[in-house]
């Protein structure tokens, strides 16, 4: 079904490139994270993020509840969330340079 739509994009791009886990930063759990996430969306959706571990963990629920991701068993979830929290922590600091005094 999607193949019919591809010619429109293919006209601008002579060859398709498939992502590999190397698109993500190295670290324990990278490959599993890649395989869990990229069936639906590319690594761009991951790499744009920068979140606390709690936020990454909440996101797993959102993905399952709202976006049809299979529910991850606890060990797999821990592996994936640990990787994401390590590889993609918050990057934008407060404009005042200091920590939000009310942040957890």
């Amino acid at each position, binding site marked *: *079904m*999607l193949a*019919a*739509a591809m010619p429109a994009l293919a006209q*601008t791009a002579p*060859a*398709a490139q*498939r992502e590999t886990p190397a698109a993500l930063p190295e670290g324990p759990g990278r490959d599993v994270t890649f395989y869990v996430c990229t069936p639906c969306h590319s690594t761009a959706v991951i790499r744009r993020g*920068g979140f606390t571990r709690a936020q990454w963990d909440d996101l797993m629920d959102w993905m399952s509840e709202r976006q049809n991701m*299979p529910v991850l068993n606890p060990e797999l979830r821990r592996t994936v969330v640990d990787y994401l929290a390590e590889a993609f922590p918050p990057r934008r600091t407060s404009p005042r340079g200091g920590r939000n005094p009310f942040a957890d």
Partner: protein
Amino acid sequence: MRERSIQELYCDDPERADAVAFGRRGALKGAALTTMAGALGATIPFAANMPAGLLPAAFAQPSGSGPQMITFEGKQPLLLLGDRPLVAETPEHLLDDDVTPFEKFFIRNNGQIPPQIAGDRLAWRVQIDGEVNTPLTLTVGELESRFPQVTLRLQMECGGNGRSFYVPETRGNQWGNGAISCGEWTGARLRDVLNAAGVKPSAVYTGHYGADPHLSGATDRPSISRGVPMVKAMEEHGLIATRLNGQPIPHIHGAPVRLVLPGWPGSVSQKWLTRIWVRDRVHDGQGMGGTSYSVPIAPMVPGGRPDNANFRTMESMPVRAVLTSHAHGTRLPAGTRRLDIRGQAWAGELSVRAVDVSIDYGASWQAMEVLPPPNRYAWQRWRGGVTFPSAGYFEIWYRATDSQGKMQPHVAPNWNPQGYGGNPVSRASVLIEA
């Protein structure tokens, strides 16, 4: 250790691997299995007809630290925010045309792009049902011939425009100000079509459906399905549109028919429209509820955990301006002191009553001229001149004020985990050569 064992398991027994990894057999849909197969070099039996994520060569990694651009056929280079789903932003300096041409129209997909239309676009059908006296199924041909056709310039803005300005960062596409267009749309008024069906007093909200498949490949759920309260659906500028800038809507922008409900998040303007369900309650489709397209009622701590009960659906988009005459990073020749600048501004349900510009970091502001829109919900041209005191580095700050006197704030306001409502004053840097 676990990674290796999962890979080996997928090579030997993918169904069992699914069960181990995800807690149930066959949990991964076809797309996942193909991705796995491609990565592992194995053949997985369930992967037929489900393409893996294709990444056209146009998405090559940028050299250095420049933004990644995409070359989509017929368009100027746009800022690539994501390739799957495909999302691309128009650089602000490309938004100068009063009527946005296709080549500068931003791209925003929630799911996969549906197949090109096979056969006659006029035969495509849209269903109107639910709390109506007479459910209707109308072809594009009937929409174009049975109802008065209206042509309006209408702002279309992604709900997440400005999200990149939030600190700390939020989920979602990291838009600057460029998720905006003002095309000339032609179609039947949604109101006229709903009146033809006869809206019952029990009608509360619409629910919209389109042909774009969910990213996961699941056929039992839409990629996006939002709606609007009936008062918005019946507002006379809302269109079931079939033409953009006088031509049949291009495929990437929702051919052959879509909703255009201006001034609200673009997600209510369903592309590849197949159905409008008139409901007796607030719609609860994909993208409704929780923190989706919603903002906090009582402001929450930035970066904190949301309480869903503290959120209300975002309706009108907030006021915003773009600078379209000069790109961020423009070099100006030595001796430049006076500069004519211009841009566009809009305010969702409201209009823009002022645009002010500062070249001294907000210490002083100069009023720009703001033209009225050609019709309600079009954006408005602003223009004026600034005078620089010397050569050197300057920032042009530009700030719109809406018709109720609300200005763009200094920073992205009212933090929320999905980054909606980020409309701070923006700035472009220029360098006047000595």
